[in-house]
Structure formats: structure tokens, C-alpha cells
């Protein structure tokens, strides 16, 4: 059991966390790991908070983890990092997109977006913070934000034994291949491992 690792990808419905998890899983499968992945569907997707989990190792039983069990949390939105912080192991690592999305209750003026999300995470965990949205705009399309975060995640995890570029090339449609490969490299470069 001790040999398994788990990643929690969190964000807001529609940000592309599931596709990112699929790229991760494809690479892990190629490398010969046993893998399980859990997604959310239905009601929870309508702009709500979403989480996707990937669990891998020599032999994996549970597709989901509880609190204090994630090796890495990748947050596509910074308040979501805080929401799932207690799922992270105390020595776990967080990759956080420095991007703010108001929830419907914040937009309606019923509550405030919390201050100091990034600082709170950085004070307690090893964190990699990047502005993936801006990097994606710079590459020409906001759509590749998720692969930028993916690049940061594999760098942060030190998973360099897998040929991620060929995994990405196989997973994304041909016309987005170059964009996503650039996004992957930019994501890696944004993180000092």
C-alpha cells in the first residue's frame, strides 16, 4: 500500500481537470502502473466545485482517497486549493493556478472571496504557484491552461521517467498538438523543482 501515490485535481466545472487527469493516467498506464481514477458528473458540474482523483502504484484498490492522503493537489483555481487543503498529506505538494473565479454566492454579493488563499497554502505546504491563464493567453489560446498545469504537476512530482510529450501528442487532437506541447513545456518551465 505504501508504494501508491495519489493526485487530486480540483477546480470549477468546465476548466478541463478531467482531460488533464486522462493525460496523467495514459502516461502512468504506459509506464506499467496499476491506475484508478474517479470523476464527478451531473449536478456537480454546473459551475460547482469539482474534483478528479488519480491513484496509482503497483496495485491500487480504492479509486478515491480521504483526508490527509493526497501526494499532490493541482488547483485550477486558488480558492479550490484551500477547499481541498485538508486532503493533502502534511508533506504533500500543491500546484496552484493563480486565478480567481467568483462563485455564484460571491457574485450575488452574499459572501466575499477569501483573502490570502495563496499565502495560506504557501505557509503550510510546498507550493508551486503560476499564472497558467496568462501563460496560455501568451501561447495563443486559453484552452491549453490545463496542460500548462499538467506540465507543472509532473515537474513537481519529479516524474521524468515517462515520455509525457508523446503521451500528450497521442491524447490531444492533431490540430492542437503543437499548442499543447508548448503548453506542457511552459508549465514545466514555470516550476522550479
Amino acid at each position: 500500500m505504501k508504494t501508491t501515490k495519489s493526485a487530486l485535481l480540483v477546480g470549477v466545472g468546465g476548466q478541463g481537470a478531467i482531460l488533464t487527469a486522462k493525460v496523467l493516467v495514459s502516461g502512468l498506464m504506459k509506464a506499467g502502473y496499476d491506475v484508478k481514477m474517479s470523476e464527478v458528473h451531473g449536478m456537480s458540474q454546473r459551475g460547482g466545485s469539482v474534483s478528479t482523483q488519480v491513484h496509482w502504484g503497483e496495485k491500487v484498490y480504492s479509486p478515491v482517497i480521504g483526508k490527509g492522503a493526497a501526494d499532490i493537489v493541482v488547483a485550477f483555481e486558488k480558492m479550490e486549493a484551500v477547499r481541498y487543503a485538508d486532503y493533502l498529506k502534511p508533506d504533500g505538494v500543491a500546484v496552484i493556478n493563480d486565478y480567481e473565479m467568483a462563485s455564484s454566492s460571491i457574485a450575488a454579493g452574499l459572501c466575499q472571496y477569501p483573502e490570502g488563499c495563496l499565502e495560506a497554502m504557501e505557509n503550510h505546504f510546498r507550493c508551486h504557484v503560476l499564472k497558467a491563464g496568462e501563460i496560455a493567453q501568451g501561447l495563443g489560446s486559453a484552452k491549453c491552461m490545463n496542460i500548462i498545469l499538467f506540465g507543472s504537476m509532473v515537474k513537481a512530482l519529479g516524474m521524468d521517467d515517462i515520455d509525457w510529450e508523446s503521451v500528450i501528442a497521442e491524447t490531444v487532437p492533431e490540430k492542437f498538438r503543437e499548442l499543447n506541447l508548448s503548453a506542457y513545456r511552459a508549465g514545466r518551465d514555470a516550476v522550479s523543482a
Partner: protein
Amino acid sequence: MERYLLSGNEALARGAYEAGVKVCSAYPGTPSTEIFENLPQYRDALYCEWAPNEKVATEVAYGASIAGVRSLCAMKHVGVNVAADPIFTAAYNGVSGGFVIISADDPSMHSSQNEQDNRHYARAAKLPMVEPSDSQECLDFMRAAYEISERFDLPVLLRTTTRVSHSKGLVRFGEREERPVPAYARNTRKYISSPANAMMNHPKVEEALAALEAYGCTSPLNRMELNGTKIGVVTASIAYQYAKEAFPADASFLKLGLTNPLPMKLIREFAAKVDKLYVIEELDGFMEEQIKAAGIDCVGKDLTGKIYELNPQLLQERIFGRKPETVDVGVSAVSRPPALCPGCPHRGFFYTMSRHKDFVIAGDIGCYTLGGSAPLNALDSVVCMGGGFTVAMGMARAFELAGQTDKKVFGVMGDSTFFHSGMTGAAEIVYNHGNVIPVVLDNSITGMTGHQDNPGSGRTLQGDIAETLKIEDILAAYGYKNILIVDPQDLAAMEKAVQDALASTEPAAIIARRPCLLIKRIKHDIGKCEVDQDKCIGCKKCLSVGCPAVMVENKKAKIDPNQCVGCTVCAQVCPKSAIARKEN
């Protein structure tokens, strides 16, 4: 041999294909929907359809079984409530071709109105039940379920949970088994469920279940994993995966795949091998209560609880008292509840309703359940599929009898829900002179579950063009004389339709019609709304439409161009005309 990464639902579809299934019918519902979304790829070998509701789906599949072919129906847990009538009698009659009913339960209510434990249905209806615990078992148990169905002459309940259906794991495929279809021969003794036949059928069911219990004691679906003798764990479904990680490596397991009837002899044999017996299962103590009733000492629900999902860390904490080490970062996230999408056609309707304090609105199951959330707050109740019209009927009659004449009562549901079980409610209102305005929010699709076709969408699951049933024609046939069809995004027209319906002296109904903006066949790229910062007075009236794209920044309205689709509902409520759509 190659392995593929499949969700439980994808593997169930593959399993049905491999089992030689020929007729498949379902109504979508999370977490079951993707089983049938993955069947059309096998359309050369089988027929699959979306039925108007789960009862219809069950009857279609059962009819195919009576005619001699293997058949399948699938639904979410609450769908089994709708389908229960044919299910209970199908158990008495038995099958010709193998017949499997999939119930996908939703512990923790990720996308449901309750977390009912449908294992009880297997006992109540006297059905064999198989429970896979991962994607490979979804495929394998599907095939096994058809063997059991035909061997014991019973329909089989295959029960998953959200984590079985929506988790992905590695799966090995097999070959499709083409089965000969026997020549049809009428068998009235078996299939006409008259009291005389039913009296003969019930003892046969009890005999079959007794034989099945013996079968379960030797079937590979139920297996022992013997390690140490100190701890034994009886478990099934996804709870097995959690328990494997939570219990020490020397714990022994009795992993059950066939969970109704429980193989009590095997459980007794296993219990005798260990010092302490745990029963680990999500939700109710379905296995534990039966094991205790058989006089076998065990612990379970006192430790694990019967509310919400489990996971490995929760089990470790509740059974062994080992709390996971977590970090409190000192900042709390505020809630991020789901909301109607920007541009959702339901918004204009619910905004209109939210302006009237004397309106009482019974809602229904679908995206429009979100019309009850802040800031719209335009629903009084949501009970079940098709309940919108009829709950409204009962409320209206109660108000009349109590003399509360100021209340104006509406029943609200979507198009797919109308076809599912709303039509009978529409008939009820006309027939019994109900003082209720039925409203169909017709967005031309089954929205919440991810855009499945329905009798009003003009397509079938297999992608063929279909007759488009017209809601207005159906209402007219029922006797509604005043049917108001309105674009809910036009707030003035929406308000007028509501007032005209209330003023009508004859039975009136409203159809608020605009397609879901997520439908891929339709282009919505019209423009985006912008705020004129000089005109905006910061009154926040635009926030009352509850659009995720509309917010207030530095005391002025702001519209997120990445989310806005230019529906203009916010612009229509602005008292200073400060919001306008910039056309593309």
C-alpha cells in the same frame, strides 16, 4: 493481453455487448447515464434506446426477454422506484432470455435527491443481486448476471454505486457471445400474471432463491482471501476496495459479488476461521443485519455509520481510531454551489417568478431545480420526477380548502420530465379542475444528465431522426384551452404569459421554450453584454438574476466576457439601461 482504461459504466456496456445482449432500454440518470451512452458503438450487434421513463425501459427490456433474447435496462437508484411495478412481477414470472436490471446508487447524493440503498429492492422483489467493485468486475459480473438469470429463471439486479460507475480502472476484454434465439412459443402459464398463475409462481421463486443461496456458496463471484486469523472482513461493492486499504495486510476477506441471497453457509464458514468479524458496507446494514439474524457475531454499522460514502481514511479512523494527519491552513473557502449556466433559458422564467411574493411554485428534478437557489429563490418544493404538477395540485387544493385564496400556484418541470411522468399530472389538473398553472420549461433536451435525446428532441439514442412530440399538442389533447408559448429570455413576454395564464377562465398552461445553450447542434455565438460604467449606479439589480457572469467590482456591475453569452436577461432588469449586448 491489452488492457483498456474504462469507467465502470463503460465496462458495463462492454459486458452487455459481450454477453450477447440484443435489446437495451434506459432512461438517463446520474450515475447510470454513460452505460447507455456507450452502447450505440455496438449498434451493429444490438438495439439500444432512451425510453421516456424507467418503467417503460424495464417493460421494453422485459418484453424482449419474454420474446427470447437477452435484454438490459438501466437507471439511477430513484429510477427503480418508478420501475418497481414491472420489476416485482417479472421476478414471479421469470425470464426466457436473460434479463438484467442495473441500479446505479448514489451514496453521498452527488447528484440525487436521496441516498436510498437499493440492495433492499433485491430482497423485497426476490431478485438475485450482483455487485461489482471495479471496472473489470463490471464487465465480468454483467456476463455472469446473464448466466444466473437464465439458469435460475429470474431477472438479476446489478447494483453499482457512483464510485463503481464513475471510477476508471484497467479492463481486459472478451469476445461477444452470439446466442441463438429460440423460436417463440406462447407460454401463458408463465407470462400472464393472473392470480392463479401468480400463486403457482411464488413458490417457484422461493425455490429458486434457495438454490441460488447454495450456488452462491461455491460461485467464484464470492471468494475468500485468507491471510491471518485475527480479523475477518465480509464486504462487497466499492466498500471492498476501501477495506483492502484500511485493514492491516494480515486481515482475511470474504469478498462477495453475489449479495442476494447472501451465501450464509459460506459466511458462517468464514466467520469460524477468524477471531473478529467485521462487515464493511456503505449505507444500510444490509448484510450485517442478515448475518446477525443468522446468529453470527459481527460488527459493522456501529463503527462505520450508515450515512454518506466511505473511503479508506474514514474506515481507518472509524474502525481503528487512526485520525488522518491533516493541515488547517487557516483560510476557509466559501461555498461554490452549482448554478444555472450563463445564458440558461430557465433564468428568465425563474427571475419572473421571483418577482411575485404570492406565487407558490412546485418544482421538479432537472437543471431547473437550481431555480430554488439564491438569489432566484423561486421554488417551494422539489420531490421527484414528474411531481411538479401534482404536488402543485395538492397544495392548491389545500389552499382552497383553508381559504388562503391569495396564493397563486404553479407546477414546473422540463420537457424530458414532462414526457417521463409529467403528462399524467397535466391530465390530473384538467380532470379534477385544479387551480394550478402547469409550466413546461422546454429546452429541447435532457439537460442535467448531459444532453440525452428524448421524445421531444427529434433524435434517438442510435442517432436516427425521430418523430418530435409536440408538448402543446399533447396539452391541447388533454383539454388545455389556453396554451401560452413564450421565449423565457424575453422578460416582458414571460411576465405577460404568466399574467394571461392566471387571468384565463379556461384551463391554461405555459410552455417556456428556448433550447439549452449547450446543445452542440445550435449556434449561440451572438455577442456579449457589456456594462457602461458611466450609466451604472451600482444598484446591484443585475445580481438578482443569479448569473455567474455578472458580478460587482468597485461598486459597479461587471460582466465576465469569458462567461457571458449575450442572453441580455441582466440588461433587461437594469433600471438605467447601463447594460447592452455588443453584437459579434
